[in-house]
Every structure is written in C-alpha cells, then in structure tokens.
C-alpha cells in the first residue's frame, strides 16, 4: 500500500503537473532530474549518475553579493539571487528561498525566538536561535492536555512580543452553546488583544507578499527544468520540545526528572508532526519531507536515552509519512555513528539520510540496503578548501558510497558563504565522477 502510494507520489512529482515548462528541453531535463533522484531513493534501479543536491542555506544570497539582511528584507533581490544560483550552477535539485525568511514579518510580530540581521546579528550573518525555556518544566500537563491551546495562549505570546495579549484569550473549546458562548469572546473586545490581531493581519499580508515571490521563483525554476529538493517539512518530536520549547538544558533534565511527562508529551506531538509533514508535502505535490535532526546526534544522548526518548516518536513520524507515500529526508546534523543500527530497522527504499560527520563507509555498510544516503562534503572543506581538494574528496566519496546507486552527493552541512568555485567543484564532481 505504502509502496503504491510512494510510486504514485513520485510519479506525480516527476510529471510536474502544475509546472509551466519553458520548452521541451526544460521539461525533459526536469523529468530526468526527478527520475535520477527517484532511482537513488528507491534502491530499485541504479540511476544514470549520482545526483548532486547541495544543502544551500544562504549561499544564493552571498553568491549574488547580497548580505543576509538584504535577502531577508528585499524579497525581489533574494528571488533574483535564488534564480541566479540555480541557473548558474545547475544542481539536480535546489533548496528554495524559504531559507531566507521575511525580516519585516518578524519585526511586525516582534519575534523573540531568533536574532537576525538587523535584530541582534550583523548584516552578513545568518539568523540564530535564542535558546531558552519558552515552556516551563511544570507546563507539561498543559501541553499534553491541549497542545493547540498551549501554543495559542502560552507559547506564541512568549515568542512573539506582539502576541503577548493572547495570554488573555479564553480556550476555544469553551465555546459550547448559547449561554456558554459570549463570555469567551470578551477578550476580543480588549484594545490590547485587538492590537495583537492587527499585528497578525499585517504579518499575514507580509507573509502573503513574501510567499507569492517564493512561489514565483519555484515556478520559474521548475519551469526551466530544476526540481525543488523538498516538498514538505516537519521535525522530530524530541527536537520540537528540545529546540524551541524546553531548550537543550531543559529537555536533558526532563529525561531525568520527569521522564513520564516527557514521553507523554512526545506521544501527543507525534501525530501533529506527521500531520505537518503530510499537509506541507501534499500541498506542494512533492513527496520529499525535510526533517532536520538535532538532539539525537552522537554525544548528546546515550544509546538508551536515544532508544527511549528520541527514536520511538521519530520512527512513528517517519513511518506515518511513509504510509502516506512520502519520502522523509532526514538531515542528521553532527555525527550519527552510534545510531546507524537503530535506523536500519526502517523499510527499504523509503527514506533519505543526509549525514554530516558520520563515517560514510560504515553508513553504506549498515544502511546501504535500507536507505538512500546523502552528504557529506565537510562544510569546513567547502569554506576553506580549494576546488581541487573538494573534487578529490567528492571522487573518493562517490567511489565509497555511490557504488550501486542509493547516493546523493551533497554537503554535510548548510552552505552559506563559500567561494563559488568551490560550489562549482562540488557540482561538477557528480557529473565528472558520478556516472554509472
């Protein structure tokens, strides 16, 4: 069943139904690239060559001579930068402009969770997360009982200064029938709550303005023969709590002090994480779901903690997406050497694992029959190395991991400001050394 669904979703993606192709050549190139990725993912056929899909973060902006601030505030210039990157370098799939999120939007809402250029970091530096306990240790029950209510009335007012008045809202589940209705709407009459909603409308307008430009870049690039690498996005439940609710420190202590609550909260968030991945991928008509992994890396958790707290809910998310015919694309930042055996219990040909510091030879050995592997040209090499050094690394990597298919050449980490010649070396390597 999952098999057929995946086949259908991949076929849908390859057809490019909603893509307006510039010409036949572009259409042929698009399909060729999707099929190349499909073959690498499914482990049924060896592709014509190793696909190459660098994990670009803000590289397109730097390459076009923009600061990160420019890219986050001037959407048109960012759009031009993304087009230029893809057309100049011709990767097999590109990562979209969504990685340059709209600065004005965050200003309107007074976003507290991140610093970004113009709000706490210099113009040329990427946005960065401000870890904190946005959810307190004693709030697990509130989250478990009603996650949406927790988000609306507790979490959002903390991460958006402009939404602080939402703390005064009543739970929507208290709207029942005639005499148990009106009272819940009283807070909407408060001036500060109304001001918060005005900010939301304004932010909504900004999001629409930005999204329409992002969409036009996507349509344009796909029309010229370049598929996007990701359709949807979601996160591992442990990271949802550990990254931006409790923070690293908070969640680590919760494993010792309130393990049952943490496990229950992970349970509650799991179907929501599946829903997020499914709905985002469906609306894009693209089966690949990006899942960045953070706190399950080597060194963060013991094997027992990983198997108890991290993996079960992540596995459910992965399986839930697979059930829907989607392809989870897991970006395992850091090292994943101690996790390979656990991962190997996943069904064959249904996931992509992009590794950073993981030993790729061992990954191929343990996971070669299970998943498509991707990675792992070190970001330090791409930043400080020479084109020749990069080609040497890629050639070796392709020989090591590319054997028999099931491999996508990529960077191990997110590429921001690197020498364009180094990007060229990475992409050319697949074409030079990756033929089967």
């Amino acid at each position: 069943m999952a098999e057929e669904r995946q086949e259908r979703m991949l076929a849908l993606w390859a057809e490019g139904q909603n893509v307006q192709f510039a010409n036949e050549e572009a259409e042929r190139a698009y399909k060729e690239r999707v099929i190349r990725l499909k073959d690498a993912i499914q482990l049924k056929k060896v592709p014509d060559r190793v696909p190459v899909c660098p994990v670009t973060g803000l590289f397109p902006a730097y390459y076009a001579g923009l600061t990160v601030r420019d890219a986050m505030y001037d959407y048109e210039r960012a759009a031009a930068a993304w087009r230029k990157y893809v057309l100049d370098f011709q990767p097999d799939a590109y990562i979209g402009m969504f990685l340059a999120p709209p600065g004005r939007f965050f200003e309107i809402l007074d976003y507290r969770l991140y610093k970004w250029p113009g709000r706490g970091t210099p113009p040329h530096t990427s946005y960065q997360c401000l870890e904190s306990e946005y959810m307190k240790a004693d709030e697990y029950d509130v989250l478990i009982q009603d996650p949406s209510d927790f988000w609306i009335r507790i979490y959002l007012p903390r991460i958006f200064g402009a939404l602080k008045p939402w703390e005064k809202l009543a739970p929507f589940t208290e709207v029942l029938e005639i005499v148990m209705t009106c009272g819940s709407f009283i807070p909407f009459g408060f001036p500060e709550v109304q001001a918060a909603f005005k900010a939301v409308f304004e932010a909504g307008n900004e999001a629409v303005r930005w999204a329409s430009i992002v969409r036009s870049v996507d349509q344009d690039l796909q029309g010229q023969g370049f598929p996007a690498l990701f359709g949807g996005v979601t996160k591992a439940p442990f990271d949802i709590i550990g990254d931006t609710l409790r923070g690293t420190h908070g969640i680590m202590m919760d494993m010792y002090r309130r393990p049952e609550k943490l496990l229950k909260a992970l349970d509650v968030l799991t179907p929501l994480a599946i829903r997020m991945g499914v709905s985002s991928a469906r609306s894009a008509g693209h089966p690949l779901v990006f899942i960045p992994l953070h706190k399950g890396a080597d060194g963060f958790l013991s094997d027992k903690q990983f198997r108890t707290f991290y993996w079960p809910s992540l596995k459910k998310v992965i399986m839930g997406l697979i059930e829907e015919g989607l392809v989870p694309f897991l970006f395992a930042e850091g090292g994943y050497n101690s996790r390979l055996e656990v991962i190997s219990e996943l069904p064959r040909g249904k996931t992509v694992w992009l590794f950073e510091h993981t030993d790729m030879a061992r990954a191929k050995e343990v996971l070669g029959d299970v998943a498509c592997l991707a990675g792992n040209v070190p970001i330090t090499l791409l930043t400080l190395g020479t084109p020749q050094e990069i080609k040497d690394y890629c050639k070796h990597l392709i020989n090591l991991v590319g054997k028999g298919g099931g491999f996508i050449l990529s960077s191990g980490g997110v590429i921001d400001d690197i020498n364009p010649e180094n990007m060229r070396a990475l992409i050319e390597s697949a074409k030079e050394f990756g033929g089967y």
Partner: protein
Amino acid sequence: MGPLSLAMAELDEKRVLELVKMALLEGKSPLEIVEECRRGLKVVGERYSWGEYFLSDLIMSAEIFQEVLRVLEPYLPIALPLAEQPHKADIVFGTVEGDIHDIGKNITISLLRCEGFRVYDAGVDIPPDVFVTLLKETGAKVLALSALLTSSFEAMRRTVQLVRMMTAKQPVRIIIGGLVNERVCRYVGADAWVREAGEGVAICRRWLGMRVVKGQAGGLGAL
C-alpha cells in the same frame, strides 16, 4: 570516594540531596560537602571524556551541583561568588563576534571550573577588542573561542590576530571549539582545536597544569 561523591558520579539527584542534608545535620562543614560533590563531578567529567557519559549527563550533573549549592547557601561562611566572574582568571572564554551559540561554551566552562580552573565567561557575540581587554584585565594565559557558524571563521581569525598583536608581553595560548577542525585551526591561527568539552579540558590541563582543588574559601573562587 565517599557515598556523596559516588551519588554525584551516578547522577542520583535524590540521594545527593539527602546525603547533603544528612551531612549538614551531622555538622560537616559546607565546604567539605562542596568538595565531596566536586570529586563526584570530576568522575562525571572523566566518564564523559571516555564516552560512558553524554551531554545529557553533563548537563544533569551541573544541575545537581547547583541544587546542592542552593541547599548549602545559608550555611556557607562567605557568600559564594557563583554568578560573579573571577577578577583574576586562568582562562577567558567566549563565543566570537556575530555568533550567539552558547551551549558548548557553557558546558565546557562548567567542566573547567570543576577541574579548578578560574574561567572568565565573556558571553556570546564578543568583538575581538573586548577579548583583548578581558585578557589584560584578568591576566589569563589561555583564550578559548567558540563558534558554530562558518561565517564565524573570519571573526575568529580577526580575534586571534588582534590578541597576538596586543598581548605580546603576555603570551596567550588560543584554543578554538565548536564547528572547527585542523583546517579551521590553521586558517584562524589558533594553537589548538577541539570538538568536545572533555578534550578542551585536557588541553587546558596540559597548558596550565593540574589544579589542586582544596576545600578552602580560596578555592571557591573557582566555582
């Protein structure tokens, strides 16, 4: 190793706090109790460095220690300079300009302090000249720089250059950590690089010598 040190090493929070309260009732000096806990913390650091313990365990051990100090606070003869920075330091530690990552930095600092080093925590997003000033003010012989972004390589390089230029009379050894390797180390001109807190402590021990931590008021500065 006594039962308190052992409970600390095993990260048994409940037992640690029980033993601390018992020790207080028995009239044991609070400084002695702190010292026993610290012996346990050292074991935690060792277990981490050989891979038996993980980041989660380190974070938990530091948390238990904080709990102990909270219990002991009313009994201590002097106010603990916990939040305060040492006036004189062995190590100045901070995240470079433009970068606000602090988890690795904080963990390494707590490990270094457990080892008895006086560490000045400069914070995050620190410009090169501030590092120079801090090195001069504290007399530190080691500068530890943290960075987790590729765009921070330049800031590290600028910091190293400025420190070398401005502290010629006070030779400072520079260690970098985070998203680094041999290549980054060469590029920025640092003396050593580490990816893990435990390795960082080992290098500081090599550079500065072992610290003998005594259960005396003077030793508390290193907390």
